[in-house]
């Protein structure tokens, strides 16, 4: 505050109801918390677990719980990256091949040359960032709408993945990988979920407590206003795709460790695109941008994993899986009140305002 000290407050009487629904929200604390998507999901996860174990007593056995958690982590990590892009009012349809390229990119050297897992970590992060930067360039620099830009790179990266594999498969990975991917830290607590939780925590902190993270919410909420408030909008959009790529790359390593194999269709065969978007939507992140967060998406990934296991336990044919995930997306979007079809269709890339004649 240089030139300005406190001016006296204008004195108009407070009109009743002026703050509208904001006041209504601060009702009973418990009810308020129940409106939070994260808590709803925790309850849903517990309820589904209770229901499934009532039908199939072995469902909550330590081994199965541990599998459900470990199996969710590659989706979880990718979904957290997807969430960052969606918060900025974009979408990343290329996470499938990014995950796949990262998995084979370290899978072959690991299989053939016993690549150290630390080096593998470094490599997948670099691969992911590079591919993510490609998306960021198309969206934030060239100005192509995100859905089109990442649809194009989905095809480009998917093609590259085929070329890189040359028809080969990764089938044998070193023990260090397999242990990380499947061993438990404690009974029922796999190492992978610790990795996933760490990623979620770091991203949560980044989004809430750094200027860049906070600017992502502002840009997603209103890019014009964010630009006028001084945010470097293009740089931030670019960054969201880089981070999404980075986390998709990490997801590739996690997938490799957990499943133990990788080939030309890794990523697309398990429909990572759809699953990451589904986890984010179920977790309360809206496609309109600016609302949601990584914790919800992580819980969404766990819920999806649990739901798939519940279907398997109930002997629902696997062919029904995609339909089930789709139904969950519909439910998630319907229960998100802000997202009307018109607003969803209005998705456009940011352009710096008013350049050129009107």
């Amino acid at each position: 505050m240089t030139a300005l000290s406190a001016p006296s407050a204008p004195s108009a009487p407070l009109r009743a109801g002026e703050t509208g629904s904001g006041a209504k929200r601060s009702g009973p604390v418990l009810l308020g918390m129940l409106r939070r998507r994260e808590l709803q999901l925790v309850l849903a996860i517990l309820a589904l677990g209770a229901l499934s174990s009532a039908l199939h007593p072995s469902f909550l056995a330590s081994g199965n719980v541990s599998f459900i958690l470990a199996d969710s982590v590659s989706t979880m990590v990718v979904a957290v990256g997807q969430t960052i892009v969606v918060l900025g009012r974009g979408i990343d349809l290329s996470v499938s091949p990014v995950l796949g390229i990262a998995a084979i990119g370290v899978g072959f050297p690991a299989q053939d040359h016993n690549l150290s897992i630390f080096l593998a970590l470094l490599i997948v992060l670099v691969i992911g960032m590079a591919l993510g930067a490609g998306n960021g360039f198309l969206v934030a620099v060239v100005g192509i709408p995100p859905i089109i830009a990442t649809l194009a790179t989905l095809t480009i990266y998917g093609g590259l993945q085929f070329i890189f594999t040359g028809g080969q498969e990764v089938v044998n990975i070193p023990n260090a990988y397999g242990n990380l991917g499947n061993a438990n830290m404690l009974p029922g607590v796999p190492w992978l979920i610790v990795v996933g939780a760490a990623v979620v925590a770091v991203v949560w902190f980044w989004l809430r407590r750094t200027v860049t993270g906070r600017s992502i919410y502002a840009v997603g909420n209103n890019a014009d206003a964010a630009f006028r408030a001084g945010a470097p909008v293009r740089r931030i959009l670019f960054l969201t795709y880089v981070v999404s790529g980075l986390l998709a790359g990490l997801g590739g390593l996690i997938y490799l460790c957990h499943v133990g194999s990788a080939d030309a269709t890794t990523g697309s065969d398990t429909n990572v695109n759809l699953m990451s978007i589904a986890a984010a939507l179920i977790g309360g992140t809206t496609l309109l941008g600016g609302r949601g967060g990584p914790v919800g998406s992580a819980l969404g990934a766990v819920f999806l994993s649990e739901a798939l296991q519940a279907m398997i336990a109930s002997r629902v044919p696997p062919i029904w899986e995609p339909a089930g995930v789709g139904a969950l997306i519909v439910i998630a979007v319907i229960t998100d009140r802000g997202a009307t079809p018109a607003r969803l269709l209005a998705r456009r890339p940011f352009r710096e305002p008013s350049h050129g004649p009107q």
Partner: protein
Amino acid sequence: MQRPPAAVAPGARRYEAIGVSKSFDGANVLTDVSVTFEAGQVHTLAGENGAGKSTLLKIMAGVYQPDAGELHLGGERLAGLSPRSAQRRGIYLVPQEPALMGSLSVTENLFLGILRRGRMRTVDWAAMRREASAYLARVGLTVDPDARAEELSIAQQQLLECARALAHRCTTIFFDEPTSPLTAHEAATLFSVMRSLRTDRYSLGFISHRLDEVLQMSDRVTVLRDGRSVLSGDRSALDRASLVTAMVGRELTTRSRARPHLDASGAREVLAVNGLTARPQFEEVSFSVREGEIVGLAGLVGSGRTEIAEAVFGLRPVERGTVRLAGELLAHRNPRACIDAGLVYLPEDRGRHGIFADVDVERNVTAGVIPRLQRWGPLLRPSAERSMAEQATAQTAVRMASLGTLMRSLSGGNQQRAMLARWLLAGPRVAIFDEPTRGVDVGAKDDIYRLIGELAGQGLACLLISSELSELVATCDRAVAVYEGHVVGELQGADVTDANLGALVVGGTPR
């Protein structure tokens, strides 16, 4: 050998709108407006942009349905009018931006919807070309009927729209602000076509906010302001002064000033704008604001005043011209650089350019300064952020349940107070307030102006944009008037009056 197409029109039927009202999203655009168009007359709708002129003509041309009121054509009541049924009844709207099919030929554009057909019901191109040349000649348009419409200039496209009205046998033709994209010479051509149509007993509607055109072209004039008809009468009964008053004069009773005029001529010049040009929006714009001074930037909506402010804040590229802040050149302007240099801009359209509706008040208020909240590298300090937000919202008296309240649930006045709080935190030396009281209730209006006065009292250089001239008169120490992108005058102290400003902003001279 061309046969004359519509011979001489038999004379358009009288077309009346009676008590028409229309609102969009709860905002009243037209309230109880009545207007009559007669054969052989040019009836001009005058008023600022946003006064409701276009909406009225669009309703009468079937584009919009009125919420209330009736349309009568030659005594017959029209209900559920669509653009197509309006055209069949002889009513044609030449839109502000010609709505032609760019990749189709001039001929095809003329006859779109009424393509002439010959034997076998196939399109009879030869007949249409013959007819087309006659219509084109009637509006003085000498272009190849086979040329593609997009090859025509804007002025030619407008004449083509007019020929299209004739080809559709329309006798009531509305022109929605046709001259704004035209040069003076092109406008003169259009006017001569309109005069000749008037002679042939066509009924013409004409929208303009240029005083000279209104006086020159009209037989009747209706002035709209804020969606109401404030003046209607024959041209012969109207003079320039009464038109000016009707178009821009709100509450001509002078408001009492909250603070005396400040003669800041001795104070330091904080903002200096020199020769700023971004055609066609504005050209060679120069003005300055001194420490502690409130300078009004007066102009009609569409005069270029918001564009000028946005260019100063680095939101638009300029061809040339400079902006200096306390003597220092702001060369590569963007919002971040301007904010850091001490220049802030409160935008006109709060919803689109100001607030983050789904974000809480605290983060809305700190949005302009969060880079300054960093400690230990990139990490923010939540406690510092909260106390800054608390202090700033207390200064501007934002009324809210808590800092965690979502911005969208605040009233317009409180949202504007929160926006002011955002810019107070930036510690500005110059602030541009663009329509700061738009969408704000009456009580909050006075509060906002009082706050601006207090800030000026503490040395802030203020540039105030408003279309409410009386608000400028009551607040400003000095006023700069813009008309069609040019600075047309500057008034100091007691000379800042409704009458003087009103004359300047419509392109006249102060008395």
